[in-house]
């Protein structure tokens, strides 16, 4: 069977060739480069990173992905991770890494840039921008007079089959975690079961809910505030309005995006400098005006279109404690019969 042996040999050669072909493309690992694993989308961060390189001469390399996937990746990599900085879309994923012991302590001058309520208690990550939980609704299907002031009204029969949530989504889970912290597991479960009994519609993510509201599939949905602004910018014909629940209601929780330096990084100074840059006034203005988020650094206000939100107004909730018990939250969501 000479043909066979030839083929076997060729296949081995092919593998070796492929392995060598681009071995030379291995990434640069010098001090002048900061490597970021970013759960934040490229469109929503790249311009700031370019400014950072321009002003400091420090090159930035970014791996984009979902916050949770990148967090799992960082756990697998452990102390061999090439990453210096981790950017998360929600507190849950960055708290997870903190629990795994993978985060380094941030310098106090970085921590002091934001109010204490939006940074980690032991100083291992800071909030960079904020998203508020709101009720997005279709004005053709909901009379503004009927809009609730609390999420607890959503288990009312008036909302049967008309409400959308994203039970598998990080923001929703963070919100449920906050609810547990505020009213306890039993009450939270009762509320989740009430939603399920009310035929709540499950979607994979916030943007899908906003789109479904726009096309009239559901009347309203629990989402982060900026998706509606973005969809409106993309599609002027989109039908959808944000409704802020009462400022002291759990439903208007503020969820922060987090930034952290990896303990395994051998470039921690530059990594911290980058996070400091994300909290500079120009970067914070970018988050406010370009991505419709709430800036978190002291002294910067939100974009004109967006109503102000008060930090810490939500039942004195310490947002950084969010995500501390994700498994418990997931259990409750599953127990209520929702796809979580």
């Amino acid at each position, binding site marked *: 069977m000479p043909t066979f042996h030839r083929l076997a040999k060729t*296949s081995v050669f092919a593998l070796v060739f492929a392995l060598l072909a681009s071995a030379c493309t291995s990434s640069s690992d010098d001090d002048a480069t900061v*490597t970021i694993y970013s759960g934040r989308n490229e469109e929503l961060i790249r311009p700031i990173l370019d400014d950072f390189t321009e002003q400091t001469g420090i090159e930035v390399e970014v791996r984009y992905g979902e916050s949770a996937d990148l967090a799992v990746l960082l756990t697998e990599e452990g102390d061999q991770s090439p990453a210096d900085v981790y950017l998360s879309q929600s507190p849950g994923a960055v708290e997870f890494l903190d629990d795994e012991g993978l985060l380094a302590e941030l310098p106090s001058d970085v921590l002091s840039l934001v109010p204490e309520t939006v940074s980690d208690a032991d100083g291992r990550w800071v909030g960079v921008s904020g998203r508020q939980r709101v009720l997005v609704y279709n004005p053709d299907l909901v009379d503004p007079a009927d809009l609730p002031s609390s999420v607890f009204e959503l288990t009312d029969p008036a909302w049967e089959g008309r409400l959308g949530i994203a039970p598998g989504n990080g923001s929703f889970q963070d919100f449920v975690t906050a609810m547990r912290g505020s009213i306890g597991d039993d009450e939270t479960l009762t509320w989740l079961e009430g939603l399920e009994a009310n035929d709540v519609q499950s979607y994979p993510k916030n*943007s899908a809910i906003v*789109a479904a509201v726009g096309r009239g599939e559901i009347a309203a949905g629990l989402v982060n505030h900026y998706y509606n602004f973005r969809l409106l910018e*993309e599609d002027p014909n989109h039908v959808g309005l944000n409704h802020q629940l009462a400022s002291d209601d759990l439903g208007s929780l503020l969820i922060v995006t987090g930034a952290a330096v990896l303990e395994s990084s051998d470039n921690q100074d530059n990594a911290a400098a980058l996070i400091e840059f994300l909290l500079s006034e120009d970067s914070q203005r970018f988050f406010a005006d370009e991505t419709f988020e709430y800036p978190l650094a002291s002294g910067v206000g939100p974009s004109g279109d967006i109503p102000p939100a008060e930090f810490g107004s939500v039942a004195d909730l310490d947002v950084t404690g969010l995500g501390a018990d994700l498994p418990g939250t*997931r259990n409750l969501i599953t127990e209520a019969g929702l796809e979580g």
Partner: protein
Amino acid sequence: MDVHAWLLGLGFALPGLFVLYRAVRLGSDVADSIDRAVGPLGRTLLLSFSVAATASVVGTALAWLIVRSNLPGRRFVRVLGPLPLVLPSFVGAAAMLAAVAPGGVLDGALATIGIDNPRLRGFWPAWILLSSFTYPYVLLPVAARLASLSPAAEESARVLGRSAFGAFVSVTLPSIRSAVASSGLLVFLYTVSEFGAVQLLGYDTLTRVIFASRLSDRGTSFVAAALLVLVAVAVSGLERAMRRPAHADQLRASYVVERARLGRWTAPALAAVWSVLAIGLIIPLVSLATWATRAVSGGDIDAARLLEASWNTALAGLLTSVVAVLVVLPLALAVVRHRSRRARSASVAVVSGFAVPGLVIALALVFFTLNTPGVGWLYQTLPLLIAAYVIHFGSQALGASEDAVLAVPDAVRESGLLLEASAQVRARRLDLPLMRPSLLSGGGLVLLSTVKELPATLLLAPIGFRTLATDVWGSYEEGFLPDVGLAALVLVVLSGTLTWFLVLSRAEALRAH
């Protein structure tokens, strides 16, 4: 040969081993985790069997119509037929959801037939959409097999009074059965691993458990992944065991095809073919095009970025398809021609790899690369990414390679042995020309899957390596639909062009000889 089979089997089994290791290490309460995964497992099985059965029938029928019938416009259908495969499933599903929504491209049409604001959620939409997206897995190998099969027996049956359909069932079907079975298995495994579309369509399967609990409850996540691997190994092992010993074609290979006349069946056949294409390709494309026009009219098209992504996509796709075919062809020879048991076990590992979600394959390679001394330099390089793709998609090249080996009649091989001493000359002048249609179709399938792969690409690619699929994902994630439409259309055009020039036109050229 044994060493090759062992190494290959081990390489392809890495994700499974990793998952089992992690499930044992992290699964603190396995009974509880399994309890949670049983419902989704049932739904996974139901959906996967339904989709596999439907796609097998549709793909085989389409293949026969293209290769053996006088269907009007069959050349056109031949180019469009494989293309539903190039849309990442979440894009296809999202485009379809947008199409039936108020203001979508189908909204008016649906309203006139009395369907108002349909909700595409649950089993039925998932079944129909996934079947329409996956039948090309069957179409390509079966069409290749039909093309390399002599029509003489079918013609004799016709002469002896069988109907076209009767001749197909009694004569042709037995010869293409292994191709249909192995590609139906691919569809099954694909559906098992599918995440994007079922999630959008709200059908709760095992992959969703893996994803939803990957941070919050890692034990459950890996136990669910382990269940999925077991299902994949069991089903592919079963398919392999039930297979009758395959025989190479004993008829003289011939390429003169007398096409069956459809006659009064022409109109129904055309309607069926174009309905399938409409759901799998045309409607999603029109939706994507409406999004893309907003990007074009908005004027913010980053051509350099699209070009870079296209180049990377093509490079990764082509390298992967060549490597995958070269890696599994020896295995196919060992399985089919030499009936090697070890090779058959290895082939189960190769086939099962397709059912493991890309995220899990990526994490497995992270684990093994970083924990094996001496290979750390491979981490997050293109070769490692290609290796992940080959592990994930090698199964598609394997089925086709086995068909390729079957396409060389024993008589031809024996005459070759008598007449030509040099193995090299025999391989070049006898084996390869006969194997070519199937090998190309296998490479084509791998190419089409690779260019849209996402989770492994995001985690394992060299940093900054942007592909069309990662661009589509990034834009979709944040709701930038015009960019989604644009990048997805470029992906479709690129994959269509590559498959045409590298696969279809070459398989065609063969017949001119």
